[in-house]
């Protein structure tokens, strides 16, 4: 079936199979592989995107459900060459190792700071508890969130 959606402020059309997740449509049809495929069961958060400004696991949304809606992926956060404040903070805090969780975390932190501009440690931990990271032990990710909040 054909769907039309707005992805990163751009109107896109896609021919999708009914069983495909939004994640698959983004990665394999719309050539936006930034959203990651670590579990495809809604457990790891690596595929996090904003769907009509709401944080979702794109693996749990059917591509067909996104018809007529607006999606922001990790690829839509930077302003050209300039990283978003959250992206820059992840770089500066050393919060990136293998980086497979990073796109989902960057989107989740963007959402967190939009809701709570200066979150405390508990709010950060709770907000990010759905984003698994296997490399960092999260310490430098928390640093990045504070850094991004400070710079806003």
């Amino acid at each position: 079936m054909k769907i039309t959606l707005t992805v990163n402020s751009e109107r896109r059309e896609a021919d999708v199979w009914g069983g495909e997740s939004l994640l698959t449509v983004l990665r394999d049809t719309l050539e936006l592989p930034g959203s990651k495929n670590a579990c495809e069961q809604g457990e790891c958060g690596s595929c996090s995107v904003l769907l009509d400004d709401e944080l979702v696991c794109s693996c749990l949304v059917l591509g067909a459900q996104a018809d007529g809606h607006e999606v922001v992926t990790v690829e839509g956060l930077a302003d050209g060459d300039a990283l978003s404040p959250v992206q820059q903070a992840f770089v500066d805090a050393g919060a990136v190792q293998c980086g497979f969780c990073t796109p989902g975390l960057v989107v989740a932190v963007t959402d967190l700071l939009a809701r709570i501009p200066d979150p405390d440690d508990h709010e950060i931990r709770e907000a990010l508890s759905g984003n698994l990271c296997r490399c960092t032990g999260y310490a430098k990710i928390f640093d990045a969130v504070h850094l991004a909040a400070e710079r806003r």
Partner: protein
Amino acid sequence: MSVTAPRTTVRVGKVGERLLRDDAVPKVRGSFDYSSDLSAPGMLWGDTLRSPHPHARIVSIDLSRALSLPGVHAVLIHADVPGRKTYGLEFPDQPVLAIDRVRYVGEPVAVVAADHPEQARKALAAIAVEYEPLEPVVDMERALEQKPLHPDRPTMGHGYLDDPRPNVVRHLVIRHGDPDTDGEVVVHGEYEVGIQDQAFLGPESGLAVPDGEGGVDVHVATQWLHVDRDQVAPCLDLRPEQVRIHLAGVGGAFGGREDLSMQIHGALLALHTGRPVKMSYDREESFTGHVHRHPARVWCEHRATREGRITCVRMRILLDGGAYASSSTAVASNAASFALGPYRVDNALIEATALYTNNPPCGAMRGFGAVQTCFAAEAQVDRLAAELGIDPVELRLLNALEPGDSLPTGQVVTGSLPTREVIRRAAALAIPAEEGLPRDPLRLPGGAGNTTRGEGVRRGVGFALGFKNICYSEGFDDFCAARVVLRADGGAVVHSAAAEVGQGVIGVILQVARTELGTDDVTLAPSATSSVGSAGSASASRMTWMAAGAVRDACRAALEERERQGGGEVDVERVYRHPRTTPLDPETGQITGERAHVALAVAAMRVVVEVDVDLGLTRVVWVGTAQDVGRAVNPLAVEGQIEGGTAQGLGLALMEELVTRDGAILNASFTDYLIPTALDMPPVDIELIEEPEPDAPYGAKGVGEPPTVVSTAAILSALRDATGRPLARVPVRPDDICL
């Protein structure tokens, strides 16, 4: 819980500076190409049919229906493997595709390539395999009496002790001093470690592209490009140069990418169809498609004087290697070599046995054998301290292994080993004050579950030491190549096959090159087997040491060459080798030369936990650690390794276990196999102990494994302190800590 603001970092750095990662920018943008992100025009999707049985004879395979389905381009079985039918990291005992029997649930039986992944899945479902189930070997103690799974004994005749018992991969006995030496105080213990999974987030995946001339390019996430090539090429009946392995973006590794996953399968399908083939495992397939940490049983007897000197240790270690050898022989060696911990013990008898079973295959995971025995040995030291009435930290100081002392293999510690220093520094870290009640439920065991107001919560403080080797051991001829191109304009390009798996080795390479060449204009070329010699594996905490040595030597040679030719472009490759090791004597487990292990590293960790003893829930409140790092090449990256390594040890202590029934994994998902989240990790206070290693380039030891080795043991020590329970099994389950 405090989260500190990051310290000042520098963008371009030399050895010893806090350096930001060059690859962080594409990674935060989502533009970094991981192995699962690759695609090519005309690409097909590959998929793998896996055994549902732990042990069965294959009676027949019927491919006809699968081949007739729309979109299906190839359905291949063992008969389609043109070269050698088996492969393996150390011993080629694993079929590329099952031949006449399957030995574990998940063993690859057939592979397909189709236009769409859904067509590939349908083709797998249409393959008819008739199996005759055989009795599975699933208990490592019974394995020694059951029928051999590998009657041809692939690990025999390689210089190990020949053990005639069935299903022995390796039996290693270390006899040191007089193992019958008595003590005035004796403590016994039996310990068990469950199966831990690397659980890297990036699934096994890659893209194989035929070159049109019979060869193939494989873009894949791996830890060692050249050893992949050397396993893939013989199975395809190709020359090594016809198989080019390219490092695609790696979404974590932790040992789980040492063994092959889709490399041969993807290449087979690509060569068969003449088209690019992508394979990408889903999470369930990832859990069954790679090796795990060996589950273990450990029996210990520690003897000591009343003053607390350990006089003799006897340990027996069983390691379940699963269906194929993978790196089990080396895991057994490490488990035995470091079984005593960093303590001077003059008399010991250590027996380690790695076994074949029909359980999931096990191989490398961060800590590599030392994790299992550290957990047991440190529990024993705590038990001894309690028996003697000596403070556990004092007992460790009293018995600390230092330079000049001997390991149980007879190897004298010649390099740096600041055991007493790491103990003192970790013990001196201030632990957080006990928090009063009431408090936010997130700061109580059970967390967001809001399960307690703190009535049944008890606090415990623990301490442990972790001990492990750096680099490969036992006479393995380990080397690392690097190639440096100095351009006429003064800039430089470094070629290295060192696998960047997230640990930051690309930063190390650039730091070394900038330091040696005296310029910031250094770039790193993509890693591929076709452009530079082998770097060896990104494992055994060796990659920083080896890559630093190779890049240093290549840079210096390039500068000399430019001087000799009076300018212009220079292109040199150099190979670095660490000091040689020799095998252990197969009868006694003693060294046959100066050393069996290149170098050693030690870490100490202090932990505070809270346990809700009514519900069996835990909260790790705080971790403080002092780690012997030789020299921190990039302190920012070293901290990241320690924090992340600690998280993996916390996972094994509290939650991570692949549960099996008759060899089948029952929890192959992130729903059921839990890894630590942002709510589980405590703050980690870190002291880096820098006593340069004399044999290492820049004095730098590897840093990735010691935190994983020590943290499981240290958390268990704290849980025992809180509950008074012996807690002899990890991961700890709620039932174990309810009082």
